[in-house]
Structure formats: C-alpha cells, structure tokens
C-alpha cells in the first residue's frame, strides 16, 4: 500500500497547526465587496454568506468538504523529471516551483486522495489554482494518473475537481502531452466500467478543459465558474467584439449542453454521493453526515 503516505485527520491536525489567518480577520468578497468574517467563510467552504459567490477553495478544504468527517488518505505521487527544458522566462522555472511549493505546501497542482463519500469509497483528485494557476505539467499529470490507478485498484469511482489555466507552459511540449496521457487514464476507467465524474470549478480553461475535464461521464459545474477553451481576453482580441454577458460561465455552458448541472458547493457532496451510488449500483446512502450552514436560497442545483 505504498500509495498511502499519510492519514489526514484534519480535526486533530488543526489543534496543532498554526493558523495562517487569525480568527478575527475580515475578508472582502471579490464579488459583492462585502466584508466577511474569515471564520464564517471557512465554515461555509468559501461561499460568500452575503452573495453566494463561490470563492476559490484550496485543495485541502475541498477534500474536507467531500470526504466523510473530512477524513481521507492522500495518494503519494512518484517524482517526475523536474525542469527538463531548463526553462526560464522572467524567472527560473525551478524558482517558480519552489515559490509555489512553499506558498501552498503542495508538491504540485494536483492532490489525490482516497476515502469515503457518503459511505462510498471514492478517489478524488483536486487541482489547486493557487499552485501556478493549477497548470497541467508532468507532476500534475502523474498525480491524476496515479489517482486513477488507485481507483482502478480499489474498483471505485474517480472524481476530478478541475481548476486550471491550462498547460504548464514552462514544461513546453511535455505539458501538452499530459492531455493525451491523462486521457489514457480516463479510457482505463471506462474500460473498467468505473464512473468518472468531473467537477468544474472557477476557472477551468485551455488544455485541461480540452482533455479530461470534458471527458467525464457526468460534468458538474460550480455556479458562475469560468469554463472554456480560449480565455475571454484572447477571444476578444481575435474577433474584435465584446463578448456577451455571462459568456463561458457555468450557466452558459449548461445552456449550451456542455455540462449536466450547475451545483451549489453546499450541495456538491450530496450530488456526487447520489451519482456515485447510482452508477455503482449501490443502495441509497444510509444517512449523510453532511453538516453545513444552511445554503442561501439563491442559485441552487439545476439538476
């Protein structure tokens, strides 16, 4: 079982962990501009209590949201060649990597974990936008492939929570090849008859959107997430016209048939649990341990 390297029990861990942000801090919602008590925001998994805006969620928080009692085992990822291009733009790639690692405490943009979601065993891989824009390089590719292998091994569903600006430019063509590579992983899930569910979060674009993020059995998007192939700025520059309101937002993709549903973050676990159980021919979940502040009544699951 060498893919297990740590058992994370956040409740215990939090007692010892130094908090980054003091409890009394206020944070400003990027959408409504309202000042929100930091603790309230964390408790609501970064959904603004005032306007329901879904603020980006760090990968650990996402895993805590999805797994029963917030308990999961992270999947260890074999190391990949680092900086094969000896890349430097305004900064050396190795320095950028170092910065991202110290900022996020992660090895790369994707964290894989296995645990139970409403009682069903699942593997979840989360792409963290805070790590170099969630970009897909060899490290992230390896983490996804490894997570898929664990799902194949355990014969359980695989859930991909995507968030990415696209390919990891600093790894050049090798990063492009990860699109094909992860697609092989998706095919193996398909061949094994295992469900592949994609959660599209803000933002998911470029090569990630143009590969595994659009190959799920079911696509679930978070409200108002920016989702597309080319970024809106590039499109505006190319076609020289203003894009319509809501262009490339989750609701827009729902309208255009690219996602199955737009689901509020507070309903995400419940929705995934229901789908996994249906697809795995498992009985209804006995009783969800799901406890969250009551979700505001604004945009709810469309499905």
């Amino acid at each position: 079982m060498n893919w297990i390297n740590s058992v994370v029990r956040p409740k215990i861990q939090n007692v010892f962990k130094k908090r980054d942000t003091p409890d009394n801090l206020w944070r400003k919602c990027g959408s409504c501009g309202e000042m929100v008590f930091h603790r309230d925001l964390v408790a609501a998994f970064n959904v603004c209590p005032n306007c329901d805006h879904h603020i980006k969620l760090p990968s650990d928080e996402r895993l805590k949201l999805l797994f029963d009692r917030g308990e999961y085992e992270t999947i260890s990822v074999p190391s990949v060649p680092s900086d094969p291009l000896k890349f430097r733009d305004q900064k050396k790639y190795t320095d950028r990597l170092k910065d991202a690692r110290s900022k996020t405490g992660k090895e790369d943009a994707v964290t894989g974990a296995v645990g139970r979601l409403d009682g069903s065993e699942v593997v979840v891989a989360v792409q963290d936008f805070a790590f170099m824009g969630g970009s897909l390089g060899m490290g992230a590719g390896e983490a996804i492939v490894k997570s898929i292998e664990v799902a194949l091994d355990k014969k359980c569903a695989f859930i991909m929570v995507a968030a990415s600006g696209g390919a990891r430019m600093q790894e050049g063509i090798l990063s492009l090849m990860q699109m094909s590579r992860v697609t092989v992983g998706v095919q193996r899930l398909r061949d094994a008859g295992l469900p592949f569910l994609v959660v599209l979060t803000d933002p998911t674009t470029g090569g990630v959107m143009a590969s595994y993020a659009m190959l799920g059995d079911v696509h679930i998007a978070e409200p108002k997430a920016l989702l597309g192939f080319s970024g809106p700025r590039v499109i505006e520059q190319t076609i020289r016209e203003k894009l319509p309101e809501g262009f490339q937002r989750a609701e827009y993709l729902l309208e255009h048939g690219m996602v199955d549903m737009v689901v509020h973050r507070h309903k995400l676990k419940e929705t995934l649990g229901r789908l996994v159980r249906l697809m795995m021919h498992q009985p209804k979940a006995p009783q969800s341990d799901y406890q969250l502040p009551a979700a505001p009544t604004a945009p709810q699951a469309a499905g």
Partner: protein
Amino acid sequence: MHTYLEFEKPIAELEGKVQELKLLAQEDPTAGISDDVAKLEAKAAQLLKDMYANLDTWQKTQVARHPNRPHFLDYAKALIEDFTPLAGDRNFGEDEAIVGGLGRFRGRSVVIMGHEKGNDVETRMKHNFGMAQPEGYRKAVRLMEMADRFSMPVITLIDTAGAFPGREGEERGQAEAIARSIDTCLSVQVPFVSLVIGEGGSGGALAIATASRVLMLEHSIYTVASPEASASILWRNSDKAKDAAAAMKVTAQSLLELGVIDRILPEPVGGAHRERAQMMADAGDAIEHELRDLSGLDGASLRRQRQEKFMAMGRGDLS
C-alpha cells in the same frame, strides 16, 4: 517567384546575381562568363546548405510557416490516389480548416486528413488559416471512427497555429471537441501515423496527432502554445515570440530528444518549399515505412501500444 525569408537575404542576393549573369550569358554566349556563373551558383548553394544546417529556433519557426511550403492538399494530391474528401460533422457544419477523407495510399485504402492553411487570400479564408472550429475536430472523430470500422490506417498531416479562438466555437464546445478527438485517437484499433509538416500548434494539433507514430519534418515546430501566445502569457509581451520559441524548445530536434516524437524527416537543402516534389515523395516513403512497421499488430495491440506510448510521457528519466 521564390519568397525569401528575412534571414535568407544573403542567399537572395547571390541567387539574384546568378540569375542576372545567366541572362547575360544567354544574350551573349561569347562573353565567357559561364565559369563565373557556375562558381557563384556553387557559392550560393554552399551558403544555403550552411545556413540551413544551423537554423536557430526562430528561423525554423519562420521556415515552418513559409508560405510556399507544401500544405495538406499538396501532399494529398501528390501521395493519394482517388482522394475523396468527405465533409461535415453530421451535427452542425463543415469546417474546411481540417480537410480529410478516403483515398488510396501506395495501393491501400486509408483515411487521410490534416489542417490546410491555404495558399492565397481566398483559400486562406476558406480554410480559416488552418485553425479549426469544433466541427473540424468532430469531422476528424467521424473519419477516425470510419477508419476503425473499415480497418483502414489513419494518416494525419499537422499544420496549424492552433484551434480557432472564437465566440461561436466556444459556444459549440471547442474544448469538448478537442478532448473527444484526442480520446478517439487513443481508441481506434488501426495503424495511425502523424506527420507534422509545418506548425503543430497546441491542442488544435494534438487533437489529431495522438498517433501510433509521430514524425516531424526537419524544420517543423510543435508547441504547447504558439510562440506569440507563449510570449504574451509568460513575458506579457508578444514581441518576445523569438525568445519564447527558443525557451520552449519547439523544434523537431528538441522534441526527439524529449522523447515526444519518433523520427525526424530530413528536408531538402533550403527547406521543403525549395524541392516540394522531393519533400512530398520522401514524406510518402516515411509514412509507408511506419505503416508497414505497424501492419503486423492486431487492433487491440495497436490501441494498447498507443496508450502506453502516451502514458510514458513525463514518467521516468529525461535528459
């Protein structure tokens, strides 16, 4: 009239002189300058050879985009008998940025397709400069599936700056279309050979280049994003395209080193555009060679080989 690239200026001058002298010699055969002409011609040829042996990344990028370089339709005409283009994605429309269909390649039925950039204003518009919309990729999926059904090898020729970034394309699922095309490349149980003939631009290229064998012409490039796009993302300045191209290692030679492609096909001295017929014949030989090599494998093995090939990219040691 030959189109010279900027760095080819010294060649242009020499070859211009050769032309002039040749005219003179024609007018007055007694002038006795034929020796000079021959010498000058040899000098020009040597200069061209030296120059093309040492092209830097940006120069190669320019050669890869040379307007006189043979394009998909040239190859199809030169290499494919009974070429029968098929149109439409059976869903929304026909996208001529990717041209493809059935044909006979060296005696056997194949599906062949590729990006077509066009050669003049009219054809460039018609083919949208080789930048496909979702319909192009959905047509590609349709053709690959047909190849699979009728046990025909798939040949793709890659030449695009990338998928078209536009409003309608996004609305109709550009990302999904590319994803599905990559997926189909990895599914079909037939031999599959891709050749990058010019520019392999990002997902728009990869969508039909996830093949059993991937070859590149000597002066072609293959990128995660075009040098211009990379420069504006990483340097926030698209004028840095030259630096971006160099830093991102986009040449055929770099890709071979990185283990991303299988083989480089030498170009005639001075680039594919100088000896078009020769280039296309060589490309035909190379494709035939790869297809013959793959012909011993059954469908399941072909699919598995392709999956394993791409699964290995980025795992293990790289120089």
